[in-house]
């Protein structure tokens, strides 16, 4: 681990203390996990502490962990935020899991970084995660009147509805999809030790 990453780790631990639910250093990147109750305060500290100074929010990404690995036991929905500090030139990743799987709600952090506005709309659109306090939580990428949240793992790849121009009616109509699901490449996971040299 480089000296810079170590400095960042020490400062994060000193500033956030018990607000860090899980701390992971892997592949030269630091990931911290926080609880929903501590989320907003953690983010505010990350931005406002001069030793950390994360002044740029790069990305907020929704994740649906329901089919991760060999059976996921944790919470289903998470929002993963990537922060960048221009002054210190370092990054951190913050993950927060929404507490209820059937009705995921997270506090909005738009007042801390205005840039997160559309990212939260996107996570709501694609995953159905609600952001409490967001003033304009509309769908953003999907069609007007779209039903469902397409990046959830239980949403089929071909979707539910398709759209075409109807010659007779002279307008665009919606109808159930006619695409037959087809598996191009099967998803495969290997058991541990697969393909290693035999002794």
């Amino acid at each position, binding site marked *: 681990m480089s000296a810079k990453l170590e400095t960042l780790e020490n400062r994060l631990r000193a500033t956030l203390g018990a607000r860090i639910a899980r701390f992971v250093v892997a*592949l030269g990147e630091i990931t911290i996990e926080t609880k929903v109750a501590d989320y907003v305060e953690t983010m505010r500290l990350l931005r406002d502490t001069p030793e950390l100074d994360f002044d*740029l929010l790069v990305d907020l990404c929704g994740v649906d962990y329901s089919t991760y690995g060999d059976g996921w036991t944790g919470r289903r929905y998470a929002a993963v935020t990537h922060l960048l500090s221009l002054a210190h030139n370092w990054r951190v990743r913050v993950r927060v899991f929404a507490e209820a799987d059937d009705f995921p709600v997270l506090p909005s952090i738009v007042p801390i970084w205005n840039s997160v506005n559309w990212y939260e709309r996107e996570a709501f659109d694609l995953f159905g995660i609600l952001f409490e306090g967001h003033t304009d939580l509309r769908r953003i*990428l999907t069609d007007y009147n779209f039903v469902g949240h*397409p990046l959830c793992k239980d949403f089929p*790849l071909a979707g539910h509805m398709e759209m075409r121009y109807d010659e007779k009616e002279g307008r665009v109509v919606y109808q159930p999809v006619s695409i037959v699901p087809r598996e*191009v*490449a099967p*998803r495969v996971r290997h058991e541990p030790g697969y393909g290693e040299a035999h002794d």
Partner: protein
Amino acid sequence: MTEIRDHTLNFGPQHPAAHGVLRLVLEMDGEVIVRADPHIGLLHRGTEKFAENRTWAQSLPFMDRLDYTCMMCNEHAYCLAVERLLGIEIPERAKYLRTLFDEVTRLLAHLLSLGAHALDVGAMSIMLYALRDREDLLDVCEAAAGARMHPAYYRIGGVSRDLPEQMPQYRESKWKNAATVKKFNENRQGSLLDFLEDFTNRFPKHHAEYHTLLTDNRIWKQRLVNIGVVSPERAKQLGFTGAMLRGSGVEWDLRKKQPYAAYDKVDFDVPVGVHGDSYDRYLVRMEEMFQANRIIKQCIAWLRTHPGAVMAENHKVTPPRRADMKSNMESLIHHFKYFSEGVHIPQGEAYAAVEHPKGEFGIYAISDGANMPYRLKIRSPGFAHLAAMDEMARGHMLADVVTIIGSQDIVFGEIDR
């Protein structure tokens, strides 16, 4: 009859200045913008969902189709993310090739953005000149990778192949007689690097022409100066990156600050704006083109003297050489496994970002150990920039919205994904 002043205006999605499929709902007071509400998603193809159902190698060509004007930089971010997850190093020559083509891409993107921006604002000729330069660079892409627009040249572990020794030439046809063909082929006698070097020698003169046509042009300045001013504090708060951030006077370039590929070994300068208006962003992009040309020159010089491999040798994660497959059973097995089942990537997550012509383009990949991503998030710079449209356009006139769209350098492939 009372005069109606407040009204709502639909700008796009079929407006030629909307740079693709932007639907902008503008609330106007007379001709002044009160609120701008961009409706995006008309080009949403679900790239992230597709990637979850394709092997890691199969998703790579999707990256070209995100920001279709900066295709190779998109591939670069994807390759960096996957390579970080795999923990592999790529050969030095591949790094220089990636640097070279990143800068070729930067020129391609900036030339198109400059041409389209000028066209929107009312200067017709720049587009024609910009396309003249783009033509040569697209020929370079075609010669190296086989395709002009969507080359899929970068691969996990390196680049797909080394540069060709002979630049393809024009042939005589019904439309081109011998004299024309001879003239067209004058700079195509040598290798691809010779052709590209000839271009880099020509380009500064062309670059000066663009400056002559626009930089001191009174109409151009009247349309751009003090339009869409963003302070450095607001630029950071709004998540700006790339030329948008530098135009506001923040010195930040990932190529310098967090170098990848061979950027730590080439010499270039980072231009920074002062006022944060559209004109400064234009100047930043112009200077970036000049610097890109410098970097290309340095890469050419290095590539000429350093032959070598362009793909990592670990054939569990990269395809084996065709010739080896004919005689070596293990290579045949590697080939079969690579193209059928694909590469398995250990559990983990990585975020890799590159300095894309538009800003920071990042790929956040989560793997659960399978042969395809568990989640692939594409962080596109234009998404954050367009989100700031409301703030930038407020209080400006309707015609200035066109300038702001042009100066944000919006491309819908990356915003809608």
